[in-house]
């Protein structure tokens, strides 16, 4: 069987005023017809640049430096734009990460799909075109296509939009489908649906697919083969089973260990220390060496070649060289047994601690958003829960289930229509009581947002951002000056003090979230509310931040409301969990109980939708 797509020594660079960014370096792989290849790695490792580069969708500053791309044996590397646009849609097409922005907001869904059909069949009759659009919408599982095709993207939910994008991508019957993090911005349950659908369509149409993802669970579910990318290079490639059951590259080990599922019963999530390197001047030798606890001297000198392990499994690490010292390969297996007794003990001690005193008491909270004069949405519907002193309470549910609205009500950003929120016995929704205790309330409650890029003022230096709450509250910094205080907080959340003078845009997502945490902690709050604080971060960075939270909570002893849609994180971090569904709190239980014995059907659905990073289990659950 000849390869459908063959990439040979592909290097792609961005030429920017700061210098050449070598986003993809010397990548080779091939794709057979009907095969699914998952490309995994942290963000900034060149995964999506590679896919967009193959489809030639990158901006003009990106150039293919070396290498060649063969499609069905034809070299398309030197194709110009006018040749490429004929291939797009027909030979390969793409699904993008964010369905919210990848559809034209001013065109109906139907006309956008019709356009994709028409590109390849310009002479299609109106009737056939309509027929085909409806057929495509049915294929991707959109009910009532006849009525729905007249709607605009804003009428659709995220999952429906992603289905529409899939319909567009499939319109030209492409041979290869590139999917760039197709489920990352979707909820767990929707993610599972979309993944199943993709897999089903891919099987029925025989389309080959390249799946870019940072979620190994997704890769386990969808892929035949997996390529692990780091710093623009493929460091390990093999079949899904080979990668999951016999990973050979230290980076793959790190990625897998960072998954919360592998840390069950541990005190801390495993993380990969550090960050991916700057690709303007990639380090000499193996780019992963400085984060690699198994690094050998030669790793700093010379980049390792691809060592074959089996016919299908290759890895680029000097550890596989015959001269390399033998090391103990870490055992990476999903813990089947329940959490170790030690962990159980800590849980119990926490629970015992939690019985102390109720800090926050939410009683029958209701909040509605008016849509028009006549109708409104009940975002939060009669929700009651309590958070004790020093307790970590997790709130999970899909987007739109009212989690953030609760957080905002608690922080007095929204004033709820009915219900009471008692903080230390003070009704914060009561205007008079709030005014009397305003200072204290503002000081003792802190909020961390999901998107650190927009929640930090881009025109303020990091040092000023951290010190600002203290300045506003006229607090004399306990460590002398504001600057010293900021320095201390930075150190506390694990950032270098050099960053004090930088602007948030100069930091990475994980660093920015650390700044946001430092800002929230500078007031030494009693209650910390974090609204999806890790949702926009990479797996390994997520693990770092979660560890940080756990560590800080232990030290400060603040109560913590942790809002997330990632159940694995919640399971790891929280003492008690509440499950939200359509504005209602449908289940509330200690974390262990909830995960072992979920009561509500929605909780069960939510738990079963988590992609498990184990190909055999994952396949068993689906097929």
């Amino acid at each position: 069987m000849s390869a459908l797509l063959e990439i040979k020594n592909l290097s792609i660079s961005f030429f920017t005023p700061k210098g050449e960014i070598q986003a993809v370096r010397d990548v080779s792989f091939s794709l057979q017809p009907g095969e699914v290849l998952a490309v995994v790695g942290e963000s900034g490792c060149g995964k999506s640049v590679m896919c967009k580069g193959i489809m030639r969708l990158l901006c003009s500053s990106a150039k293919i430096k070396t290498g060649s791309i063969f499609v069905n044996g034809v070299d398309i590397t030197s194709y110009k734009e006018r040749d490429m646009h004929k291939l797009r849609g027909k030979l390969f097409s793409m699904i993008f990460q964010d369905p919210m922005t990848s559809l034209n907001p001013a065109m109906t869904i139907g006309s956008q799909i019709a356009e994709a059909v028409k590109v390849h069949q310009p002479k299609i009759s109106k009737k056939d075109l309509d027929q085909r659009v409806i057929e495509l919408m049915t294929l991707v599982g959109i009910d009532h296509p006849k009525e729905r095709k007249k709607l605009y993207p804003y009428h659709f939910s995220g999952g429906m939009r992603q289905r529409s994008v899939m319909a567009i991508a499939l319109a030209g019957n492409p041979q290869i489908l590139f999917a760039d993090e197709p489920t990352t911005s979707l909820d767990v349950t929707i993610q599972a649906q979309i993944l199943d659908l993709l897999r089903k369509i891919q099987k029925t149409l025989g389309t080959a697919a390249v799946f870019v993802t940072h979620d190994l669970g997704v890769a386990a579910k969808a892929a035949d083969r997996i390529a692990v990318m780091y710093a623009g290079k493929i460091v390990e490639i093999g079949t899904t089973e080979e990668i999951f059951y016999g990973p050979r590259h230290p980076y793959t080990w790190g990625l897998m260990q960072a998954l919360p599922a592998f840390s069950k019963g541990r005190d801390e999530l495993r993380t990969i220390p550090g960050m991916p390197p700057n690709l303007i001047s990639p380090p000499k030798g193996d780019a992963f060496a400085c984060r690699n606890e198994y690094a050998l001297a030669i790793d700093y000198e010379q980049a390792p070649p691809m060592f074959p392990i089996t016919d299908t499994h290759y890895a680029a690490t000097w550890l596989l060289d015959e001269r390399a010292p033998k090391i103990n390969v870490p055992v990476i297996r999903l813990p089947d047994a329940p959490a170790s007794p030690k962990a159980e003990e800590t849980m119990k001690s926490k629970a015992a601690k939690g019985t102390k005193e109720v800090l926050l008491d939410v009683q029958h909270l209701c909040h509605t958003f008016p849509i028009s004069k006549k109708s409104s949405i009940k975002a939060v519907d009669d929700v009651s829960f309590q958070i004790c002193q020093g307790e970590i309470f997790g709130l999970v549910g899909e987007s739109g289930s009212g989690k953030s609205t609760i957080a905002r009500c608690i922080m007095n950003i929204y004033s709820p229509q009915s219900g009471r929120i008692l903080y230390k016995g003070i009704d914060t929704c009561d205007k008079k009581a709030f005014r009397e205790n305003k200072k204290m309330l503002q000081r003792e409650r802190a909020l961390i947002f999901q998107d650190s890029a927009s929640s930090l003022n881009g025109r303020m230096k990091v040092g000023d951002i951290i010190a600002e709450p203290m300045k506003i509250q006229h607090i004399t910094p306990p460590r002398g000056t504001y600057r010293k205080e900021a320095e201390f907080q930075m150190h506390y959340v694990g950032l270098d003090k050099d960053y004090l003078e930088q602007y948030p845009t100069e930091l990475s997502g994980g660093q920015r979230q650390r700044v946001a945490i430092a800002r929230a902690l500078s007031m030494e709050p009693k209650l910390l509310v974090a609204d999806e604080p890790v949702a926009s971060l990479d797996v390994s960075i997520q693990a770092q931040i979660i560890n940080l939270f756990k560590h800080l909570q232990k030290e400060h002893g603040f109560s913590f409301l942790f809002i997330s849609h990632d159940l694995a994180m919640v399971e790891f971090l929280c003492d008690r969990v509440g499950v939200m569904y359509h504005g209602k709190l449908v289940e509330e239980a200690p974390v262990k109980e909830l995960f072992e014995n979920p009561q509500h059907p929605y909780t069960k659905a939510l738990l079963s939708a988590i992609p498990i990073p184990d190909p055999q289990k994952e396949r068993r659950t689906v097929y």
Partner: protein
Amino acid sequence: MTKQNLPLYLVKKIFVFLFSVFLLSVVVFYISRLAPGDPLVSYYGDRVEKMSSAERIQAENKLGLNDPVYVQYVRWLGNALHGDFGISYKYKMNVTEVIKGRIGNTLLLGGTGFLLIFLLALFLGILCAWKEDKLVDQIICKIGTISSCIPEFWLSLVLILIFAVNLKWLPSSGAYAIGKANDIGERILHLILPLTIVVTSHLWYYAYMIRNKLLEEVRADYVLLAKSKGLKKSSVMYKHCLRNILPSYFGLMAISVPHILGGTYIVETVFSYPGIGTLSYESARYKDYNLVMLLCILSGVLVILCNMIAQAINEKIDPRVKSGDSDI
């Protein structure tokens, strides 16, 4: 906005419109009387200097200038509501007649200027966006920056100096040579220089705006999807990007009508072009109250109308606003 409450919408808009015009007339009426100067000069010319104080009072009484301002205003408003806007002190004619004779010229200059700006800006904007950061784009942007910095009146004088005085290719002033009022060629010849000034002083701003808006769209995620469908660059540009920015461009152009009109006023004055602009300038200078009033109200009506049109367009742009629901 749904169709059922369209009448209500219109009634609301008309009320706002009338109220704005009323307010405008009050303000202009008072302000024009606050300014220093002698309205009698425009009526009697140099004779005013030789008048005795008794004669002056008589003349002022005749024109109704001795009454308190609010009495004058009420009288003016009463007449205006009957369609009588008074006579021009300078021309001794009904002001509507005076304006009728001039307004055609201004509409010709402003209208063609507006159309040219509208189309050229679209063309240049698309060209620049298409050739982003290439030489053409850079040159056009540089020219735009430079010519936006040059004041209109100075550029007018330089162009007059070059093309009218030295080269003698084009006439330096007026709308037509004496006795050739109906000669179209003659009119066009007289229009070239003022039109050039009007267009060059406004064009770049709009072209630049189109360029930037287009580039913003080109970088939007949906363009990637459109491209990955297999659409050509031109289809993506016209069917997606341009289509999405056009409504807001129309809205902007509607607001900018008065802006461009203001530009023609200056140009008219410099080129002694017999339009509304020179008329406004003269009437303000000579305290020709009735003429000032009507001219200001005409301009004001245009400004308010254009703003309302722009607002209506903007309300229509977003399909969400049109269908009257939104999902939070």
